[in-house]
């Protein structure tokens, strides 16, 4: 058996992207301003969440999103469970329509990614409104959605990197 025929380990296509996204979130939490503007705060884990749903249905991504969401909550000081629920709410529709997404162009994938991010943001918005009693500002929510959508090239790279890395992913 050659080295290329070995199955891809979970730590490579789930673990490493998870760690990379959390590291990016940590860097973006630095209280600095560039040219007078604060750094953006995208939901970095939405990029691998979409890619994992497209690549292959598996047990690990769901629990990785749960873990990553909990880390984001303690990092950002958000209520426990908020980001885990939002990320999973974005991941589940991707699983449901992965047959539709297979073989689509990057443009179509990008549109679906934007919709998925919107679903996650809406769920977060509803949870925050229910927990705090006041609806979060739509402009701030839209800004975070936009900065998350801008991470789509990373999603494309993840899909291209791991789509042919394992025979089971086809």
């Amino acid at each position: 058996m050659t080295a290329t025929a070995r199955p891809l380990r979970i730590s490579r296509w789930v673990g490493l992207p998870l760690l990379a996204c959390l590291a990016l979130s940590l860097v973006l939490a630095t209280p600095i301003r560039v040219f007078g503007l604060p750094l953006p705060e995208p939901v970095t884990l939405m990029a691998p969440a979409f890619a994992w749903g497209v690549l292959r249905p598996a047990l690990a991504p769901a629990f990785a999103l749960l873990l990553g969401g909990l880390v984001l909550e303690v990092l950002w000081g958000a209520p426990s469970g908020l980001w885990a629920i939002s990320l999973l709410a974005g991941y589940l529709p991707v699983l449901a329509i992965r047959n539709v997404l297979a073989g689509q162009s990057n443009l179509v994938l990008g549109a679906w990614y934007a919709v998925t991010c919107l679903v996650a943001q809406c769920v977060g918005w509803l949870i925050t409104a229910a927990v705090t009693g006041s609806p979060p500002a739509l402009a701030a929510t839209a800004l975070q959605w936009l900065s998350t959508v801008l991470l789509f090239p990373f999603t494309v790279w993840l899909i291209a990197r791991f789509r042919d890395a394992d025979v089971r992913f086809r």
Partner: protein
Amino acid sequence: MSFRDNPFGEVRLPLLLGAAAAAVVALLVAFALLMTDRRQTYQAGATSALRRASDQVVAPVTGALATPVRWIGGVGQGISGYFFAVSENRRLKSELAVARTWREKAVTLEDENARYRALLGLTLDPPAPMVTARTVSESRGPFANTRLINAGAERGVKVGHPVLTENGLAGRVIGVTPGVSRMLMLTDAASRTPVMIQRTRARAILTGDGGWAPELSYLRGRDAAKEGDLVLTSGDGGVLPRGLAVGRVVRGADGGWRVRLATDAAPIDYVRIVMFEDFVKLEDLRALSRPSPPPPPTPVPALPVQKPKPDQAKPTQARPTQAKPTQARPTEARSTQARPTQARPDPARPDPARPDPAKPAPPPAAQPAPAREPAA
């Protein structure tokens, strides 16, 4: 079929179903965590050990990441200061001339205020000590606006302490660990701050929504606010000291009144934590909210057996005024919040709100008429 054969060997769970089931299980776990979260109470001990531990880990990492950027920013400021020194000198001289006039006015007003306070016997809040610290991490999303500060329990920081910048109020402490505290910004969706408009003294609640300008909720009265009015903390409820600068009133895109925060004038870098003790926490709230025991029965004076005259008052009229201790309670609680040292009842001095069992009830004719009416 032999015993060694696995009867379920050929049974394979569809991958998609397995992944969906895993996602649903994870969703249920996350939902359970959300239901058990006590973050919104913002009380001491509400933050979990995991949050405290992560704050202690995150703070030095983001602090180290920010250090080179600070250095670069400092170099940039130095260069611009060198090239723009002349124009800045001119601007500062003109500002100084204006400030001198204001200083003279301030000295006069301070003296006048001191005399008024002496005349009225007014007691102000004692000055509270402060701790200076630096913010080392921030979250600025729509659902959470918090910051980590590199001063914690070892420096006396407690949950509830207000946090100021050089421009005004930034937020308050919601979590404390040794070395690090977490501050809730005024813009957080869960932040509620009692404020007042300086011009009209109109009260409102500053309600954060994750946006750049929190909303002024519960603002009442005609012309209570107008664009540019200064907003200060009202001190209502005893959670925050009175008179801290919050910002200026602006008209929001939705037509409502909002506040452009004073802290937006400059990056929030160094902050001061005011060791202000919440008046509400000084009280035993459970004791205050406990229903007071019913008053002992008033001894009925022995009256001589004789036929009552028609002009004498009926004894039943005296009942509503003498047995209403619950109506007097809100007044009692309010006064204890303002002056905590007077909260404990003095056994030597009976509470005027309660009837003295030793004394008989005064005749109804001596009671003021409004006291018989039920409280609104």
